[in-house]
């Protein structure tokens, strides 16, 4: 039992009261401070409760906007459009602040055994801003916008398993899949799959920018700014602000200055290098949320020397992850353990032993593999993430202790993902957050996936992946994902140093609930309907 640390507990209680930390990190830190879980839960409950108040105009400065953006959900690309989409449109399902799956336009859903048929009941109270009710017809057209031969949607691959969607006539619809997928309700949170009004011919009317979300779009200058007012008939709880102004601020310095001078109330994506300076400002609160985005270093498991599991394990033991998180991510990251399943995803197994930095163990593994004096090339480009080249150089210094020579090769930014990734035996990759482990593993770890970036072939892993995909029993599923994590951790070909956090900031008069969704920045891109001004 660790000793209690009263000073830290006081600080935590204070942080919880002012909403500076999420419930998840609060619980973690409380355990570290020597509290029991039940005591920590109690402390959280007494300090962090604050009732939301309505009113005010929320001005949000968002990064990544482009004057070529469009309101077509099929080609949503930039973060500012994703943020806007979650403010004026709705989805069938949504990710709640605590990371669970919740209802949006669909009130409830159920699967037939085998998970090949899914039925979603549509909320009777859901209305478009134009006043029309959201019907099964609208939902089906919205989904079909991403399906079929003529579809130009980037989400087409996501729905490729969907064979048919039918209207049951009782305000519910049924998806038929070609193979069982227990994750379908999670997939429907994808930002492309927004509900838009249907035209008479079955196509959708995205051009009019009519939505059924918490706010109505009244002014829209793409890539510049958007003004929205509350949709009083919205079907869910929230939407505390009267009006929203979403302003695109691509320059990190412009964003931070605007926040410091009070020109905006909140901003996305902070520059980590200046985080400590911004933290000193008493008017600003920083939200630091562990996410499911990941940095990976895939090695080709069918190319020497990576074809030897002992060599792969030696390289995993030769990286000092804590130092990389401290120096490269400025502390804003969750440690990786070489399985691509972050604590921000459902079914995360918390009992996989952490692969530690252990040069002696690495040396003995290399001896066993007969690969002493190992020398390998690691390819990286500046554009992978801020600090990516520095991270590789630091890793190469760590690996020297194990007698491994990592030769860091800096590739040009242009064409990195077409010329280096999937082509070179070892490189660095950044992955965006995916909602479930199945989506992630099927995309980049399945034996025959086009993006199997490590060429990893593990029979048991692939068998479990298929079984878990159609398993509707959550406990059984979690157990399968635990075993898969174990396999990836021990045998897999990917070094995962860390999962980067989402780091964003707000003026201290802006408040939010005890937890923040980890699917996107700004509380799962739903800050506009979930946050409020302190009265």
């Amino acid at each position: 039992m660790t000793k209690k640390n009263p000073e830290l507990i006081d600080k935590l209680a204070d942080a919880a009261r002012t909403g500076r930390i999420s419930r998840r990190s609060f619980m973690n830190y409380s355990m570290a401070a020597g509290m029991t879980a039940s005591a920590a839960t109690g402390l959280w409950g007494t300090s962090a409760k604050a009732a939301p108040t309505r009113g005010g105009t929320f001005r949000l400065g968002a990064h990544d906007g482009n004057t070529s953006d469009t309101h077509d959900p099929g080609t949503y690309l930039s973060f500012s459009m994703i943020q806007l989409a979650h403010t004026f449109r709705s989805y069938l399902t949504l990710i709640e602040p605590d990371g669970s799956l919740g209802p949006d336009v669909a009130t409830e859903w159920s699967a037939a055994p085998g998970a090949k048929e899914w039925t979603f009941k549509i909320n009777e109270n859901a209305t478009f801003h134009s006043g029309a009710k959201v019907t099964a017809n609208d939902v089906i057209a919205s989904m079909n916008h991403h399906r079929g031969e003529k579809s130009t949607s980037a989400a087409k691959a996501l729905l490729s398993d969907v064979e048919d969607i039918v209207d049951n006539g009782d305000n519910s619809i049924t998806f038929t899949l070609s193979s069982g997928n227990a994750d379908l309700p999670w997939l429907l949170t994808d930002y492309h799959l927004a509900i838009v009004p249907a035209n008479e011919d079955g196509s959708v009317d995205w051009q009019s920018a009519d939505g059924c979300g918490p706010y109505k779009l009244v002014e829209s200058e793409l890539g510049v700014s958007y003004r929205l007012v509350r949709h009083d008939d919205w079907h869910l709880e929230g939407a505390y602000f009267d009006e929203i102004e979403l302003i695109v601020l691509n320059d990190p310095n412009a964003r931070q200055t605007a926040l410091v001078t009070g020109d905006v109330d909140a901003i996305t994506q902070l520059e980590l290098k200046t985080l400590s300076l911004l933290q000193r400002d008493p008017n600003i609160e920083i939200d630091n949320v562990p996410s499911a985005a990941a940095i990976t270093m895939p090695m080709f498991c069918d190319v020497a020397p990576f074809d030897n599991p002992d060599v792969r394990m030696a390289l995993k033991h030769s990286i000092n992850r804590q130092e990389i998180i401290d120096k490269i991510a400025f502390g804003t990251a969750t440690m990786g353990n070489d399985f691509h399943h972050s604590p921000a995803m459902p079914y995360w197994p918390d009992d996989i032993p952490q692969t530690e930095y252990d040069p002696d163990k690495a040396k003995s593994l290399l001896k066993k593999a007969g690969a002493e004096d190992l020398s390998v090339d690691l390819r990286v480009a500046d554009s992978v993430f801020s600090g990516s080249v520095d991270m590789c150089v630091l890793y190469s210094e760590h690996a020297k202790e194990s007698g491994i020579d990592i030769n860091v090769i800096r590739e040009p930014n242009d064409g990195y993902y077409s010329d280096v990734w999937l082509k070179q035996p070892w490189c660095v990759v950044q992955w965006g957050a995916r909602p479930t482990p199945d989506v992630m593993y099927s995309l980049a770890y399945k034996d025959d996936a086009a993006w199997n970036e490590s060429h990893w072939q593990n029979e048991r892993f692939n068998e479990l992946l298929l079984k878990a995909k159609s398993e509707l029993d959550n406990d059984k599923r979690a157990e399968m994902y635990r075993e898969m994590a174990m396999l990836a951790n021990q045998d897999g070909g990917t070094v995962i140093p860390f999962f980067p956090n989402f780091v964003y900031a707000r003026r201290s008069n802006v408040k939010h609930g005890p937890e923040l969704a980890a699917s996107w920045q700004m509380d799962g891109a739903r800050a506009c309907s979930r946050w409020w001004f302190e009265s």
Partner: protein
Amino acid sequence: MGDIVSLIGKRLGYGLITLLVISVIIFFMVEMLPGDAAEAILQMGATEENLAALREEMGLDRPAIIRYFDWLAGAVVGDFGVSITSGEPVSAIIGERFVNTLFLAAYAAVIAVPFAVILGIVVALLRNTLFDRVANVLTLTSISSPEFFLGYVLILLLAVRTDMFPSLASLSADMSFGELLHRTFLPALTLVLVVTAHMMRMTRAAIINLLSSPYIEMARLKGTPPLKVIVRHALPNAWAPIINVIALNLAYLITGVVLVEVVFVYPGIGQTLVDAVSKQNFPVVQACCLIFAATFILLNLAADVGAILTNPRLRHPK
């Protein structure tokens, strides 16, 4: 005067030919970029099928030459086509932003041009004094610093530290004119600092150049005060090079301000061009580049006409 009219006519004709050549170059340069608009939009989500469908929708499945002549046929009657990413008319996308750019350029020019010319005259008068040196060092420092750096320094001093001006120059339709001037003051000031040195030093050099001429010597000998010597006797002969430099700087105020737009989040045309290039949105790139090219052509023409009008010898050629 007839000479000038025919000169303007001739130069405008050449200008049109230049624009045509530029449009060909821009079109094929955009074509040469790797990938196309469909790939730029779909990125990781691209599959063969949705790429093909999107290309068809954007009209990218037709040969490049045909697409160019299609565009040209529209352009000669004033229709610059529709943006291939959003389907909106190019004029709707660019129109308002070009007005914003012109406004900012005009705002900066109204301050910078008189300021630079007067400062140039003053330093020519006080040449080689401490004031001359200080003015030179300061203006050269501001022209040598990158614009975004100047912008950040101004934001730090005038927005963050003293809160005199807003750091964001975002515009809204219901702003009063005074509010507009206040909101866009920092970007305008940045531009003023960037263009002043060039115009001021040219004014100074052109005047000093003339000061050793015999007729100036004469004016001085007959007892004309130094200020009058410069303003009445030297300046009229110095206008031609000064007007040329002013025209160049005005063109720069319209075409070269993308960094200032980014730093102050000003919705001008530079950002539109950068975004359109990154998405390979050819009709928008083409329209922006032609506007820029036309700006240079017209301002150069204006400079030449101005130089002729201020110089009697050019006005009445033998």
